């Protein structure tokens, strides 16, 4: 693990390192603590110049209103459905496509990989109008299916690239051995390679999920029916009304972020080993 050397850092250097890390940790954590703090404020203290992290007369009132008087559970449900479907679609399509890009020397490989990365360069606004028109024609406007397809397409490029990079690190000889033992091509992929690629699969699933859990713009264009609103659309409503619903926004933000943060931190061990950008191995 040591960056350099076998020699130990002198004490002043260790102190300096801790000081720098501490400053950045505070900067990284503070905004999150601040939202939590606002969500605990009682209604008459929403606007205050106090910097206390645990506000005076802390209360869970905002959470109560959020769950009982606002359609928050509805949004939560909608977001969960959409993100879940995108995750399943994203993982299954990216794991197969990435595999082909890693293992087969077919004519479309170069073209395919380049077009995958090229999609990252399209400004999202460029796709919005045509997508909007197209979904209306296909009667998919204002439906979850339309949103799920749109999201899957936007998360796929990164996921494919990411899966391909990880497959590249798995020795081909393992599949060859399986093939010799009489396994089919798909069998070798499914039983040998896929389990070995689980760190990358986890990362792919995480990104697919987070991508759709947190997306605002496409949802704003595709969804119009309030009953179909996902979390970002709902929370934005609170926020635009700075005066009355700031506490509700903060409470909602906490509820929305906590699951992904936990998921993310829980998986962060895999992030470092599983996140490859298909780079190191030429």
């Amino acid at each position, binding site marked *: 693990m*040591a960056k350099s050397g076998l020699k130990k850092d002198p004490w002043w250097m260790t102190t300096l*390192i*801790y000081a*720098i*890390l501490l400053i*950045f*940790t505070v900067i*990284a954590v503070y905004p*999150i603590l601040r939202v939590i703090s606002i969500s605990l404020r009682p209604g008459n203290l929403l606007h205050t110049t106090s910097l206390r992290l645990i506000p005076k007369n802390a209360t869970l009132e905002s959470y109560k209103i959020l769950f009982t008087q606002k359609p928050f559970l509805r949004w939560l449900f909608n977001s969960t459905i959409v993100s879940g479907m995108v995750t399943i679609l994203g993982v299954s*399509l990216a794991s*197969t*496509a990435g595999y*082909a*890009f*890693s*293992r*087969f*020397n077919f*004519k*479309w490989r*170069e073209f*395919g990989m380049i077009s995958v990365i*090229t*999609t*990252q*360069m*399209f*400004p*999202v*606004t460029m*796709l919005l*109008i*045509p997508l909007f*028109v197209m979904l209306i024609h296909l009667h998919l406007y204002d439906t979850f299916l339309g949103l799920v397809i*749109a999201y899957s*397409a936007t998360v*796929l*490029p990164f996921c494919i*690239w990411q899966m391909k*990079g990880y497959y*590249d690190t798995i020795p*081909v000889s393992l599949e060859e051995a399986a093939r010799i033992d009489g396994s089919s091509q798909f069998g070798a992929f499914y039983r040998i390679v896929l389990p070995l690629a689980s760190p990358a699969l986890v990362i792919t699933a995480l990104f697919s999920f987070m991508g759709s*859990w*947190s997306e*605002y*713009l496409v949802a704003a264009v595709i969804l119009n029916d309030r009953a179909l609103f996902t979390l*970002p659309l709902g929370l934005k409503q609170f926020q635009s009304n700075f005066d009355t619903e700031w506490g509700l*926004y903060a409470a909602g933000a906490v509820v929305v972020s906590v699951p992904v*943060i936990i998921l*993310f*931190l829980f998986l*962060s061990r895999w*992030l*470092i*080993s599983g*996140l490859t*950008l298909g*780079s*190191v*191995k030429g």
Partner: protein
Amino acid sequence: MTTVVATIQDYLYDLKKNRTAYYYTLPAFLVMGFVILYPFLYNIVLSLSNMSLTHFRDWRFIGFRQYVTVFSEPLFYWVLLKTIIWTAVNVFFHVTIGVSLALLLNRPLFGRSIIRTLLILPWAVPQYITALTWRGMFHYRYGAINLILVKYFGVHQIQWLSTPIGAFAAVIITNVWLGFPFMMVIALGGLQSIPRELYEAAEVDGAGRWQQLKKITLPLLKPVMIPAISLGIIWTFNNFNVIWLVSNGGQPADSTHILVSYVYKAVFNYYRYGYAAALSMVIFGILLLFSVKFIKQTKGTKGVY
């Protein structure tokens, strides 16, 4: 003619020989073709038309006139300049902060994994929440930033969101905050793959810490960071969310726009469809030129064979 036939034959042969590969990629490409390729082609058509609110149904082709309009408006160059500044400043801080923290963390330290986890937090928070939360923190009277500045640093309150420069600084600070953990994680992964023996050898040869950093760590980190940086540049260049949500649609007076948010405004507020499509193509062209270099450098399209 014969070459065309030969090429087609080549492809048909390949289609047969590598049939499995095409099966594996087909589903993903169907979805992406449906949502990305078709809109892209549609957008090209639109960029050659005069479609707008007044010509919505009776639109017709007008050639490259929309592109001429794009390049003849002085505002375009101003927004382009701001987009470049936005991208350069953000990516610079993402990389320097991310790599520095990774270097500091890549040693035995007490509480190392807790610190690392906490430092990844900004990445884990959904982007729109980050943006909306920071917007609240930049509030002139009740925002945490001004309160802290006044209380602990004795500085006068800053007009963050109501002045063009303040608002631009605010969006950049927000985006730097949420972007550095990605670079840090990539750098940490890269550092782990550097063989320890190199440092041992360097030590034997009497190379100091600084020498080791300059001669071993940074050069070996470079191939890992370059694709990440290039991707970071593309993402930042096109980052709509942070700009739009922190500055509430480009406020004050449309002064915080970068190209993407400027296009969005042209579409959904001014209904200049043809113009917006042409401008989108220009943005795409800029990024494509940049990336041709990127793909050449990383050789990421190669497989294991």
